[in-house]
């Protein structure tokens, strides 16, 4: 088996006197499409922030491609929760995507080279927003903004793409299109998707885990009733949530 791209070991996070994450261990492999589900406030965003190095855990380690240094993080692509930054900022789509290359430029002063520009055009093409490149991000629709954010993550050639609640603010057709794009990206990188909405788990996920302070894993792509119950602390009606049948375990019964 190949080495994991992300290894989270025994991580605990305490914020303002509350334990947000406890005994969380997780390994993501290069060909994984990992979905982490859990209720709001269950620590999903916190776990992503720990992986990204934005938050120091009180205990435990995170290794990216075997390394713990900050430099290893440049192999991570991050699609933050929608609207966590200021969309009023005066920046064009092309500038925003180009800025995703900064992590790869180490010579000072940092200047964009031909490679950076070529990668940017490529990412804009991949996300189908080349025609919007010179528009301000605030003038785009929600779905277009979302694609611009993903393009910025792709331009840095990540080994893993981490997505935080990527479809919360987009309509159903846009979400479907979005998961189509993810399916194509899978060939190039591992994907970790975090969401509270178990109804949106796409069909091609390879593994699912439930997070509510602790991480409940199954190492399959099935959401089992006991995982959900452990994470949500209540029996969950799978059918009512619209979870497609293919992620059910055989013995799942409707409540």
């Amino acid at each position, binding site marked *: 088996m190949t080495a994991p791209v992300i290894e989270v070991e025994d991580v605990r996070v305490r914020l303002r006197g509350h334990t947000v994450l406890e005994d969380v261990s997780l390994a993501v492999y290069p060909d994984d499409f990992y979905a982490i589900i859990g209720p709001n406030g269950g620590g999903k965003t916190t776990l992503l922030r720990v992986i990204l190095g934005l938050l120091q855990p009180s205990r435990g380690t995170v290794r990216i491609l075997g390394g713990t240094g900050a430099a290893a993080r440049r192999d991570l692509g991050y699609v*933050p929760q929608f609207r966590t930054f200021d969309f009023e900022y005066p920046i064009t789509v092309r500038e925003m995507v180009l800025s995703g290359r900064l992590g790869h430029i180490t010579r000072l002063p940092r200047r964009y080279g031909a490679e950076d520009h070529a990668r940017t055009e490529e990412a804009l093409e991949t996300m189908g927003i080349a025609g919007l490149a010179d528009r301000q991000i605030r003038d785009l629709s929600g779905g277009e903004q979302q694609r611009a954010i993903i393009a910025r993550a792709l331009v840095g050639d990540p080994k893993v793409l981490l997505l935080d609640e990527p479809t919360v603010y987009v309509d159903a057709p846009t979400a479907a299109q979005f998961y189509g794009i993810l399916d194509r990206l899978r060939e190039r990188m591992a994907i970790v998707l975090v969401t509270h909405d178990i109804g949106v788990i796409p069909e091609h996920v390879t593994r699912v885990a439930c997070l509510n302070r602790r991480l409940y894993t199954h190492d399959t792509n099935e959401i089992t009733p006991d995982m959900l119950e452990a994470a949500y602390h209540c029996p969950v009606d799978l059918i009512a949530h619209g979870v497609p049948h293919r992620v059910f375990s055989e013995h799942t019964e409707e409540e």
Partner: protein
Amino acid sequence: MLEILGFEFFRNALIAGVLASIACGIIGTYVVVRRMVSVSGGISHAAFGGIGLGYFFGIDPLLGATGFTVATALGMGALQLRARQQMDTIIGAVWAAGMAVGILFVYLTPGFAPDLFSYLFGNILLVPRGDILLMGVLVAIIVAVVALLYRELQAVTFDPDYATVMNLPVERLSLLLLVLIALTVVMLIRVVGIILVIALLTLPAAISRLYTTRIRSMMVLAVVLGIAFTLTGIGLSYLLDVPSGATIILVSTLAYAGALGAERLRQGD
């Protein structure tokens, strides 16, 4: 009124106005897009502490203000990054404490503080040659730093989390930006005074934002607007024989109101 250009004090005023506008347009752009207006207000009022210290120790008050303001800006930044205190509370504390330090030291300084009033409300018609030189140096520093670190500053002011993931020195860049704000504030003290600094720092950039789509163009237009406002203000204050700082601010505010109104009408169509 062209004969007035023959006087050195008036030429100095114009040069000071242009220099201040360049710093304002560039740094004010970051202040507006990063929403640091109140931070800048705190830094500028803290400058009064430096002026008080300058009087007390017998050094140029503006030099005292430079050191004190930069130190305050760094302290505020460090508190924000480390202590995770509520920033608006820190700003309020620094704002008042700086003024208090200034008042205390001006009081403790024997004798009369001659142009204290001009530090509070500015008097661009009294800017001495030495201050012009200081302003020139500060503008050169600001322009050089921003030209060199334009991409990094953009990344950090746009999305600091992503900049951190990309392993940029986010902390150092944020502190650097605060220092640049502090230096700009010091320059503006001569022009409009501590109390009015915040308006000249933000209004040209805020108007510019309405008509531009990128940081670079926003800066250029803000500089042009700043120069137009200060020169108009200086001219009007000379013609009407009223205080220059207040006139510059009122000209800027009227322009801002006009621009917002025009924008409203345009979007109403």
